[in-house]
């Protein structure tokens, strides 16, 4: 186990698109253990994505079970090659990032999503997520596409009906 160094803006590597994981071996699982140790060490980090530590593989970890007020969640999750297959609704919420210290801002995300992924052994997973947890997954998958929340932050005066913000907000590719 080892703490990994977290890349911070303006590090250009954060804009790199990560590659899918093809080999589900002990090396992958050792990396995931280090990634989790790094997440737990981060100030109040709920999630983390592999590219944040300079590993450009499609791996994210989220755990929404520790919010001040409980929210619907699936607990600790390692998602390998995650893909969002369904989106529904949109809502504004506040986000921050280990890679962008001392800044939080409002971002519009889908309210409900269906997500498919692999576990660290290559077994298929599927989740329906909503609210805070859906936000977490979208934030982390953005990292895999080289996208940071600061690219999606909306003004405090932005109303939700301006949905153009969400549609035009990304330059990252979704596979």
């Amino acid at each position, binding site marked *: 186990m080892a703490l990994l160094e977290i890349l911070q803006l303006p590090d250009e590597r954060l804009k790199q698109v990560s590659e899918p994981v093809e080999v589900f071996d002990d090396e992958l699982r050792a990396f995931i253990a280090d990634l989790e140790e790094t997440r737990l060490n981060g100030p109040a980090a709920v999630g983390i994505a592999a590219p944040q530590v300079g590993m450009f593989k499609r791996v994210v970890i989220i755990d929404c079970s520790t919010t001040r*007020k409980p929210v619907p969640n699936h607990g600790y999750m390692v998602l390998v090659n995650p893909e969002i297959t369904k989106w529904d609704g949109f809502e504004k919420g506040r986000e921050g990032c280990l890679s962008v210290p001392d800044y939080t801002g409002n971002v519009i995300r889908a309210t409900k999503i269906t997500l498919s992924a692999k576990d660290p052994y290559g077994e298929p997973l599927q989740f329906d997520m909503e609210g805070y947890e859906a936000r977490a997954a979208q934030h982390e998958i953005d990292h895999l596409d080289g996208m940071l929340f600061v690219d999606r932050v909306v003004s*405090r005066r932005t109303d939700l009906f301006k949905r153009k913000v969400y549609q035009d907000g990304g330059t990252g590719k979704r596979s």
Partner: protein
Amino acid sequence: MKATWFMLTMIGKDKPGMVAAISGALADQGVTLGETSMLRLGGNFTVMMMVSGAEDEQSLRNSLAPILESQGMCLHVDPIEGGLHKHVIPNVHVTVSGADRPGIVSQVTAVLAELGLNILDLESDVAGTEDKPIYIMQITAVSTLDIESIESALSAVRESGVSVSVSAIETYIG
């Protein structure tokens, strides 16, 4: 060396190009901007901006003088304590709306002050029509209290005919 910061306050009748003119004049003098707030209020463009890198207040005034003249803006300068990287993360959001009348802001914020909430951001606006103006206010704040306690403390305000809703801001960090 610790940076010396000034807070500039500038106001003028709104028109395109004001921000470019001001920031251009400051950049030409090697003055850097910190946190700023710029918005249109009632047809006026208002600017509050932290700046550093100026020799003193007079040199700031000198570099802005031609722009203020051409843009029709007035300027106020204050030396300030503090600096960057001092953000506080809000955890409470309060939304208020109701038929406009004197005292809404005072009534709501008196309750919040009593509870020890620290307001980080307050924006308010008058919507509706001249005949039926609606006052709308959004507050983001920091509090150690739970949402229910804040809600119930605001019940008197609600009984006076103003809609108030309080929600927790759960900031996602990833």
